[in-house]
């Protein structure tokens, strides 16, 4: 958002402005995609859209009269941690349907465990991560796939 304040390395943002803009954009998108609904299908949506627009406008007014400025991340380190953590999770989700549940989960658990570890590349840490990933993932695989019959994602090349 344009209304920002510097605070060292991190910028403060007008949270009310962000929220109200998101609300108004969402209202616009929902209105656009629900124009052709039947009379019954649109009753509820219309009332909700009115509410969404009214409350977004009220927050927008607040954004200019009594704004709330917040710092999104407390530090650069926190921001980097979040970006790396989310990236690991993202790669895991992308890998699930490609290489299958078991290999993707073993790799994810191992990597994530190692990433959160303080002594990242010691022999003990690596061994613990390997053992834990094998134990936890296999246990839950047995419960869900074998016990409850949930068909978990398989690799692309498996029919």
């Amino acid at each position: 958002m344009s209304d920002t304040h510097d605070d060292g390395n991190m910028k403060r943002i007008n949270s009310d402005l962000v929220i109200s803009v998101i609300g108004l954009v969402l209202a616009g998108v929902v209105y656009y995609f629900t124009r052709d609904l039947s009379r019954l299908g649109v009753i509820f949506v219309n009332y909700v859209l009115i509410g969404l627009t009214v409350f977004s406008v009220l927050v927008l007014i607040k954004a200019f009269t009594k704004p709330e400025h917040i710092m999104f991340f407390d530090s650069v380190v926190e921001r980097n941690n979040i970006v790396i953590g989310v990236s690991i999770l993202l790669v895991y989700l992308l890998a699930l349907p490609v290489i299958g549940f078991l290999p993707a989960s073993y790799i994810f658990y191992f990597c994530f465990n190692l990433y959160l570890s303080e002594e990242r590349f010691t022999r003990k840490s690596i061994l613990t991560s390997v053992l834990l990933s094998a134990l936890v993932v296999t246990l839950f695989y047995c419960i869900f796939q074998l016990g409850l019959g949930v068909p978990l994602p398989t690799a692309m090349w498996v029919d």
Partner: protein
Amino acid sequence: MFDVVLQGLQQVFVPLNFVLLFAGVFLGITFGALPGLTATMGLALLVPFTFTMSPESGLIMLAGIYVGAMYGDAIPAILINTPGTPSAIATTFDGFPLAQKGMAQHALVTAALASTIGSLLANVVLVVAGPPLAAASLKFGPPEYFWLGIFGLTIISALSSGSVIKGFLAGCIGMVLSAVGMASIGGDVRLTFGYPILQGGIDLIVALIGFFCLPEILTSVIGKRRKTYTEKAVEPKLAVIGEVAMKIVKKPLLLLRSAVIGTIVGFAPGAGGNIASMVSYNEARRWSKDPDKYGKGTIDGVAASESANSAMAPGSLIPLLTLGIPGSPAAAVILGALMVHRLKPGADLFTGPEASIIYSFLMGLLVAAFLVSFIGSFGSVIFSRIINIPSRYLAPGIIFMTVLGAYAIRNSMLDVWIMFVFGIIGFVSRKLNFHPAPIVLGLILGPFIEEGLVKSVLAGQFQGVFNYMVFRPISGVLIALCVLSLCWPLIASWRLKKKKGEVA
């Protein structure tokens, strides 16, 4: 009647039946505790195993699963801020803050004892006044459901500590999300963007995991690199059970009110434990002498939520057993089990030749409630230690389980992606001081409100929709409660000023 009740009780204490009940409670707690698995799924999975059993044994085991799951969902809600089922959403509001203070065991014991008390009271109502109450449940028409949903929305004023306007904006976003999928009346397909699986709507558990669990891990474990999941480690002691029990018995009004709310919401067909627990939480906060302590970690909040959602279970059986109308999805599975055992719902069920079977089931629910307090209280010593596990071990496991839980609901990767996106939205909204709880509330209540509204518009077109929706006795009471609920912050502030004036 007393003889049949005794016969039912005797059946429960037949060794085989008691073992089945115990196993049922244990399985129920496990199903409730694992995000992605619910009481309904547990019952549906285990109903086939009861086919070969005698009707008494089969129904007693199902009673155990049902009651166990109603408690089990509180365990992850308290320990990792992830409700095991939607019924435990209000338990997170105070349960997780208690865990953060190192009082996870207090919260777990409270949940177990409050669940037992709520369940017991609702069971007594079911046994004593089931048939007349079932007749009353038929008076709940579309306008009543609409107003009950609106009343549920008023809890937003309690959930949005910073700004009520932002809270209602979040509630509207939640209701927009609830509109995704096929409209229950009219059949319009809305906002699915070409994904057929979204025709069934956004699954509530997926949303709960996304909005509650992932943001907590992103903020505390990944972002701040906290070494344990909570700020303070738990030191479980058996003495805590007695300490909490003493505190709980000193709150009869809170427990009674929550159990009554749970029972009433339960016997209104279609309303579930999530609505019961949230309405009860809101009322507990409203009538508390110190409402500010709610949301910061008080056992009163946990007790209100758990007592109500456990009372909902027997409450939902009232219309089921007397009218054949299931009050909740889990009750619908139990209806199937009754049919398999050739038990036909109706008033005759309580007086006819099958009375002993049905009272075995009811007594099973009653004894299961005691087993929950036993397993829950003593189990808290073990369960609460989970959050002492270093977060480097716990967090990957939790994320892995959330992915698995989200996937298992509909065997769809789309649900996992929705969970991930909601997790990011939940994280961002927390950072913006925009609590995601009202979004989830809107998502839960949206379908309920829509169905009540659209059916009212259809049914009331001759006498006038406004007249049809407003001038009905139960609607009148609910409207009055909505107005009271919305005006309550003003009333409370006026009372506070008056009190301060008197002191001065």
